[in-house]
């Protein structure tokens, strides 16, 4: 499976949750598959989805699901120790690990070679780290939500992107409707 197929499959689980979605094609795919006011789309700032989601999860009690990518986590590796030492129970970091920088033309990342993100997350202090195959994503995500424990999921899947339109919504509108959904 590629990322967009996973997102289609887990859309019913994501729909009722606060979701912070990574820059580029992941946000375009989620927006096209199931746009919700509970989705915060990153339009720029590669690497910070996990950080934004962590701040959000610490600041309020609702579950927060971050849809991140292997390339983006690699660009902000300092995030893993911060998560490992501060992870609240309502935080789920789902790293879609397709071993490539999808938004820029599928150049390979190091996770497709020797680098093991799950091992890095564990070494950084993250207590609940699960590795799942693409087909098991929905079940693992639901289990993480049901567990009530902060979780880092590494979802191994194929490289590739769906052709989706660019998000043209104004960032302040994305942010404002998201904040209203958070507060509701």
């Amino acid at each position: 499976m590629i990322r967009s197929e996973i997102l289609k499959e887990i859309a019913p689980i994501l729909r009722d949750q606060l979701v912070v979605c990574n820059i580029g094609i992941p946000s375009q795919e989620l927006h096209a598959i199931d746009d919700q006011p509970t989705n915060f789309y990153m339009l720029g700032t590669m690497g910070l989805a996990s950080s934004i989601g962590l701040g959000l999860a610490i600041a309020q009690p609702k579950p927060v699901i971050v849809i991140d990518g292997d390339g983006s986590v690699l660009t902000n590796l300092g995030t893993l120790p911060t998560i490992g030492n501060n992870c609240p129970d309502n935080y789920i970091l789902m790293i879609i690990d397709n071993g490539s920088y999808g938004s820029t033309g599928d150049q390979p990342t190091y996770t497709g070679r020797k680098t093991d993100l799950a091992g890095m997350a564990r070494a950084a202090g993250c207590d609940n780290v699960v590795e799942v195959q693409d087909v098991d994503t929905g079940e693992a995500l639901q289990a993480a939500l049901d567990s009530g424990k902060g979780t880092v999921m590494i979802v191994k899947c194929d490289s590739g992107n769906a052709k989706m339109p660019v998000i043209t919504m104004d960032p302040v509108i994305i942010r404002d409707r998201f904040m209203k959904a958070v507060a509701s």
Partner: protein
Amino acid sequence: MNISKKLVDDFVANDVSFITTVPCKQLAGVIDEVEARPEIFHIPSNKEDEGMGLCAGAWMGGKRPAIIMQNTAIGVTINTLATLTQYYRMPLPILISYRGELREPVACQVEMAVHTKALLNQMLIPTYHFHKESDADEFDEILKYTFMANKPVAILTDASFWGGYGDQ
């Protein structure tokens, strides 16, 4: 007057309850004070752009955030300030240790100091420079201004403000 305590009192009085810090010798007293306050969730970050991401999330979650960092980090955070904090129109007080000014013992610090105000100006970030201790009287108003304007606002605090660097 304990200036670190005064600055953190002003944070608390303005309901700033989520503060991320990156270590700094000059701001060590402020960081200790932030850590000691039960009203504040203190989360050290490993890099300043990461910290600004944490602050963005905390603000969307209903908490008023702030970041404490050195001026060298302006070089690290330009993209985050432009494409996250400013693009989504979010408030962020940035309390900055302004290294490389008068009384600076380390020459390399001057190399970012000479760019600091130019970069903040280029980013259209309102900037205040604390040089004398009495300059901190305005900190409370600067915080109110930041959350009124929904913008990142920089507060540069130099070595003269802190009374020098001590032994290095």
